[in-house]
């Protein structure tokens, strides 16, 4: 009984915390997380010191991942049907103890409970000798989609960031390959490719000082994987140039160790750690954010925040609304041309929910998209539902008319409606992803009677429906204002 009470209290606490936190939930405590990898429907990330985190849904993370070798700052990439894990052994001493080594090893699965779970013996692919201008730790892996060549960047503030080529079949260093210097004054690098550009992500600022850490993620880009990587000002990363991707915020301090996860076209996430999450004990935590691309540069997005919004179609710019009678406001002052100069100008009260709700039907009310003028039937409160779990995009949300419990819901006919009371049913829970262009995708957790993954779509200027998401179709995109 006592145990039950404690659990109940914990659940309440978790609920409270979840409504506030902006990092992942569960026990997401990690430092230097590797790029998120998916294996048999679960998500994995490994960290410094061995082990790592596993998530069923991408939102709640718990320990359990296993990585031998301990060491620092791993990365992981799936090549074919195998996973290549890189990690670092470090000299670990001040004053010249920078005898780093980058090692790689393979596994058929990341699930430690699988009978196939067995890492190959690690091989050294790069190393640094104490006092040279490099510290061979913090590996980042890129399988170049244009060439199939495998690259590994590594290094810290101690000298240069370097890149070496690995054999994608063996994970070993390509015979005769020479390391190339590509940046200075950063660490925790990661290489990415997008639309003809190679991107070198790094971390600047001060690490490992908890809530006093100034860690921040930066980037430069190049037409060639071996550089030169320059920032938006044209400054070479060999001279310290870089553009900010994401930094700290009020409650999340010290953003570091970038990883990119592409869910599908237009839906990308970035993984990182915050050196201190003040809402979670000040510990270093895993965070996953939308990754936005603007003018060819990556920007770290934010988790969707609770609030009351106009839900605006990208297609036309109209707002999602209840299909109810339009209730006119009293006409305000008239006469543009003959206005008495002495007439006082007073604010006019906005239409209130109480002014109109009596005119609404009590049961289901369908929805449409219309000219937005800030009326109660057009204002949607979007509120996280912590107990409903989540996804890589964050927690699920309920979408209700402001001041009511009338909730947006998916129907078995693959349409959308509103129900008078939010019950927490899967068709009333919504996943909200910020897309790479900054607009949003809105998807129900489930659609009754089908396993299809459908999204809210503006099928006509004024008509919403549910349909498969297509990033290249403007009908599938929304904005919250």
């Amino acid at each position, binding site marked *: 009984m006592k145990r039950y009470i404690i659990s109940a209290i914990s659940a309440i606490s978790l609920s409270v915390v979840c409504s506030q936190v902006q990092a992942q939930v569960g026990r997401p405590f990690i430092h230097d997380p590797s790029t998120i990898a998916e294996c048999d429907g679960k998500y994995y990330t490994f960290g410094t010191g061995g082990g790592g985190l596993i998530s069923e849904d991408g939102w709640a993370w718990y320990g359990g991942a296993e990585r031998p070798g301990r*060491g620092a700052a791993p990365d992981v990439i799936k090549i074919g049907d195998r996973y290549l894990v890189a990690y670092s052994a470090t000299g670990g001493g001040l004053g010249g103890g920078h005898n780093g080594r980058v090692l790689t090893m393979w596994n058929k699965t990341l699930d430690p409970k699988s009978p196939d779970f067995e890492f190959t013996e690690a*091989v050294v692919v790069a190393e640094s000798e104490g006092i040279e201008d490099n510290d061979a730790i913090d590996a980042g892996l890129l399988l170049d989609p244009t060439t199939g060549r495998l690259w590994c960047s590594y290094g810290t*503030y101690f000298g240069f960031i370097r890149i070496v080529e690995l054999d994608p079949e063996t994970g070993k260093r390509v015979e005769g390959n020479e390391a190339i210097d590509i940046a200075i*004054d950063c660490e925790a690098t990661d290489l990415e490719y997008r639309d003809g550009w190679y991107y070198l992500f790094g971390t600047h600022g001060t*690490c490992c000082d908890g809530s006093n850490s100034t860690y921040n993620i930066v980037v430069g880009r190049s037409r060639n994987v071996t550089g030169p990587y320059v920032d938006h000002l044209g400054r070479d990363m060999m001279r310290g*140039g870089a553009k900010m991707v994401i930094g700290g915020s009020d409650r999340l301090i010290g953003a570091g160790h970038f990883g990119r996860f592409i869910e599908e076209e237009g839906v990308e996430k970035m993984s990182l750690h915050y050196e201190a999450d003040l809402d979670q004990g000040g510990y270093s935590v895993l965070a996953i954010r939308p990754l936005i691309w603007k003018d060819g540069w990556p920007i770290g997005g934010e988790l969707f925040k609770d609030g009351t919004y106009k839900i605006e179609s990208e297609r036309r710019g109209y707002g999602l609304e209840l299909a109810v009678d339009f209730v006119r406001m009293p006409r305000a002052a008239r006469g543009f041309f003959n206005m008495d100069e002495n007439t006082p100008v007073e604010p006019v009260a906005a239409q209130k929910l109480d002014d109109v709700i009596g005119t609404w039907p009590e049961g289901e009310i369908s929805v449409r998209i219309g000219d937005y003028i800030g009326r109660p039937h057009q204002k949607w409160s979007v509120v996280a539902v912590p107990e409903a779990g989540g996804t890589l995009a964050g927690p699920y949300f309920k979408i209700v008319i402001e001041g009511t419990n009338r909730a947006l819901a998916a129907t078995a006919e693959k349409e959308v409606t509103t129900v008078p009371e939010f019950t927490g049913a899967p068709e009333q829970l919504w996943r909200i992803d910020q897309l790479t262009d900054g607009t949003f995708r809105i998807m129900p957790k489930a659609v009754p009677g089908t396993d299809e993954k459908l999204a809210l779509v503006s099928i006509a200027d004024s008509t919403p429906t549910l349909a498969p998401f297509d990033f290249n179709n403007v009908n599938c995109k929304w904005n919250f204002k």
Partner: protein
Amino acid sequence: MRISNKTVLVVCCLAFSLFAEVSAQDVRVARRSENDPTLSDTKRSIDGYFTKAGKGSVSPGEDGFIRRWLLLEPIKKDIRTNTLFTDSYMRQTFDTIYFKNQFTVVPKDGQTVKVGKDKLAWHALDSKLFNVKLFRFAYGLSKPEYGVLFWAVTIIDCPEEIQNVRMSVGSNSASMWWLNGEEAVFLSGDRRMVMDDVMSKRLTLKKGRNIVRGSVINGPGMSDFCVRFLDENGQPIKNLKISVE
């Protein structure tokens, strides 16, 4: 300065548990770039990063970076962590008198000063890089690299007065810079070196001889700086003559 970041994590946070268990079957050494100066570092030397400054003057490089400097061997400071690098601490550190005529001397190559019990020498050098690698300067001379304060002086001969110029500095870690005896740039806190990181207010380079003086502090980690002057359009000023005599 930041080299310690991951290292601090290793040492302080995770202790021995972090050290990797390496049982590699194939230890293939990553080769360094051919021009890596430490490849020939069979004995300590600054030759990989500096050449001795010659007679006369040189012009700034293509990007305007000043590469000819008089560098004083590092002054030892009791700095065990960068966390004490507050603005107040740094100002007090840079305002402290360590040797005679500290803020006025234009030393000669090989000239020495007394700092406490230590006799430290000035070295007239040209950096082979756009930046001046103070860590390598200290390491190459078998001087302390960590917990130190560096001093640098150079002479800029300007063919005509140039108004509205800015001194542009990047340094690892904090530093302070003076032009003709006046404080020009202060780079605060624990920071890495980035070109054009901090700039002075609008200054005037007078016709003839101008003296630039700088001091850079280093806790644990790398240390370097880069300095150039930009005109009012943000373009590097290159019609300068840099000398150390």
